[in-house]
């Protein structure tokens, strides 16, 4: 007699080579693939790091410069050579590397160089976003933003898939129900909107949830070094999101 039925989540096989593993495997050799993979990862996950730097009390200008410089150094592969036990996960690697970067004395000597090169990231809107962040400790903020970025990424991929299949309208109608309790989904009304049967609406919502889960795991997979880490990382991020 439960409103929400639960069965343990079955681990799904993962056959993707993760982007992060490509980066790590190539860390000592110059490879265009790994450079491109790292570039993509950094572009996707820069904001959590910016939020962290701001959270540590640095002024917006400083935080922008520091984040910019950090990524410039990272992409120049300096930091990948640093042996860090946290390398298994991109999330923890980035944070630990950033902490080192911030505390390391040498970065002070780099001040004049900062901002001189090409801008890697668009930091213009970052401060607006940061202004709306909840009052969390910098580390918590970082994790929360990280998890939300993954959700964003997952939804964007899902949207893209539907658009590609010519079913954008279906996604627009169904996406809100991803965050709904099962008992509260009005399948009959969805069926009317989509001009389909109630059964088909149920199936559509079910498939959307399933695909959402798959894509979320895939997004996570791209940030860990081996497939066996996906489950732990998933549980960690879900716990992060469930904190009020």
């Amino acid at each position, binding site marked *: *007699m439960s*409103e*929400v*039925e*639960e*069965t343990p*989540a*079955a681990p799904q096989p993962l056959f993707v080579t993760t982007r992060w593993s490509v980066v790590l495997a190539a860390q000592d050799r110059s490879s265009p693939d790994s450079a491109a993979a790292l570039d993509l990862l950094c572009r996707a996950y820069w904001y959590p790091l910016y939020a962290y730097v701001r959270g540590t009390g640095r002024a917006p200008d400083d935080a922008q410069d520091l984040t910019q410089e950090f990524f410039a150094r990272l992409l120049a592969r300096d930091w990948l050579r640093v042996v860090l036990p946290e390398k298994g996960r991109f999330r923890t690697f980035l944070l630990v590397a950033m902490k080192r970067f911030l505390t390391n004395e040498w970065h002070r000597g780099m001040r004049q160089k900062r901002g001189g090169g090409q801008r890697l990231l668009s930091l213009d809107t970052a401060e607006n*976003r940061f*202004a*709306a*962040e*909840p009052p969390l400790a910098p580390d918590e903020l970082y994790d929360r933003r990280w*998890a*939300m970025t993954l*959700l*964003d990424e*997952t*939804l964007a991929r899902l*949207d893209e898939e539907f658009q590609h*299949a*010519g*079913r954008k309208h279906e996604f627009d109608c169904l*996406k*809100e129900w*991803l*965050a*709904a*309790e*099962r*008992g*509260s*989904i*009005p*399948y*009959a*009304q969805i*069926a*009317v909107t989509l*001009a*389909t*049967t*109630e*059964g*088909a609406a*149920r*199936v559509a919502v*079910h*498939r959307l*949830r*399933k695909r*959402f*889960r798959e894509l*979320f795991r895939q997004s996570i997979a791209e940030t860990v070094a081996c497939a066996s880490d996906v489950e732990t990382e998933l549980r960690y*991020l*879900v716990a992060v*999101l*469930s*904190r*009020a």
Partner: protein
Amino acid sequence: MNTPPLPACPRCGVALPIDAPRGLCPRCLAAMNLATETAFTGANAVPAQPPLSLTELAPHFPQLEILEYLGRGGMGVVYKARQRSLDRLVALKLLAPERVLDTKFAARFANEAQALARLNHPNIVTVYDFGQAGGFYYLLMEFVDGVNLRQLLRSRKLTPEEALAIVPPLCEALQFAHERGIIHRDIKPENLLLDKEGRTKIADFGIAKMLGADASNVGVLETQPAGTPGYMAPEQKSEPEKVDSRADIYSLGVVFYEMLTGELPADKLQPPSRRVRIDVRLDEIVLRALEKTPELRFQTAAELRTQVEAVVHPAMSLPASNPPHTPQTRNRAWAWIGMSAAVLAVLVGWSVLGFYRARRAMAEAQKARAQAQRVAEERALLPDAGETPADIADVPMRDLRAGDDEMKRFLLIGLLDGQSASKEGYRLLIVLPGGAGDANFSPFVRRIYKNVLDQNWIIAQLVAPQWNLAQARYLVWPTAGDRYPAARFTTEQFVATVVAEIGKQHSIDPRCVFTLSWSSGGPAAYAVSLDPATRVTGSFIAMSVFRPENLPDLAAGKGRFYYLLHSPTDFISIKMPETARDLLQAEGARVEFQTYEGGHGWRGDVYGQLRRGLEWLTKEAETGGALPGTAP
């Protein structure tokens, strides 16, 4: 920086971040999708089996441009396509991949498809072509741009006039096919299409037979009667080999009954006019189409059509038992028209005053009709309480409307033998169910009565009126502090009407008027308990959000009792009920807080949890003197 307060997630109550992914609450997204696996519920559950993608399909049908996947029916999957040679839209139906290697089936498929392709009638979906490709048998058919009758019935209730307009063309089409020896065998709303011009067309003629029946193999027939339970004629189940055109008339009778009443005919058949206000002459027609013995039904679809048209246009086709084109009928029809003309002349001769009076009366009648239709439409949105499972068959339940308001629906559960079990009166438990707050929770609520309560109690299960999609999405139970704009009344008013209504019929113990609510019912239960006018004395609130900013002054909780139940691993933070406890206690309410394991939902010893909570509330309410602030 002074920022306005952020909107809160309507489900978990936590502030929504400005850049919430696609506007969705991240906590709920995670809780609903990542922590649990979704399982199907309900009879409509269909195994998720993806149809072929458009690109997978394309190589098998070079003559077509496959445009989109339209849906899956019991018979196969349907795609919308463009036939390149003729530049016309077509529907491509793929059938029976499991029969591809069956040569006997191939022969029958070809025979039947040829017969269907010869069936040219404006009210029958035309079959253009058929064959085998890509591991499927396929039919290429006319594409009907519109909806099927099932979709229409789901979106709103039909007026009797609409139902009457739909039936005659269906009869014509059936008559046409029957005269050519083709029986449909699976008439049901899903197979009746309405295009954008309002034309009705029957789809899937003979496909049930093609797939399920096999004249050379009675064994198959006996184990797999073709058709859909609920719409099948009795002989289709018992003697499928003897089915003839009269089975289609029975099925059409079921559809007709459903269009008029919104329900399928029950075993013990009630005339439609008992269920809805319609012309009683329709009773006779519908009941005759639904005769269990084929011999007692209309023998032809044409006969059924004549009878229906007699109700629609009485002047033109009386008497209905005769064929419509005999000279005698014509004469009578002309006589009717003559009489109608005379009546019209009298009308024209009315005084100006009479004319305006008549017009006003008509306008009022129209308004009343519109009102009745709105109510019927809104009622059609409320799901039915469903079948009664055997274990609670002995728990009496009545489906009532409080204050004669169609939207204030509640299910009254308990032994109401006209006299109260104790001299204090009944203890009343008002249940605001969680989830969508609909009637589907009634078996659970009746089990609560059976397993937890005794004859001193009655339960009123309120059914959340959902006015539209937006409300269902955000707010099941609108309250004074958290209104949905389109809501015509608040949950506080709903509860007050129900309590007053029950109070008129039964004596209620004023100390023991409790609410029970969980999940999405919780916020409304807090609000009801803080309504200064409420008669509610205690609230059992489980796994719920607590948002004091949407509630009236918590000081109104003084002297009331709250039993809060929450799981520490619920995606709704346990901080919420903890805050509720602290704030309400500070105002002088008596609060008991309990936890259970397992996260959001009723789990573990559910009835034990309910019993402990309700016992606590009863004891506190009956010995109320223990309350700080209420002691003399």
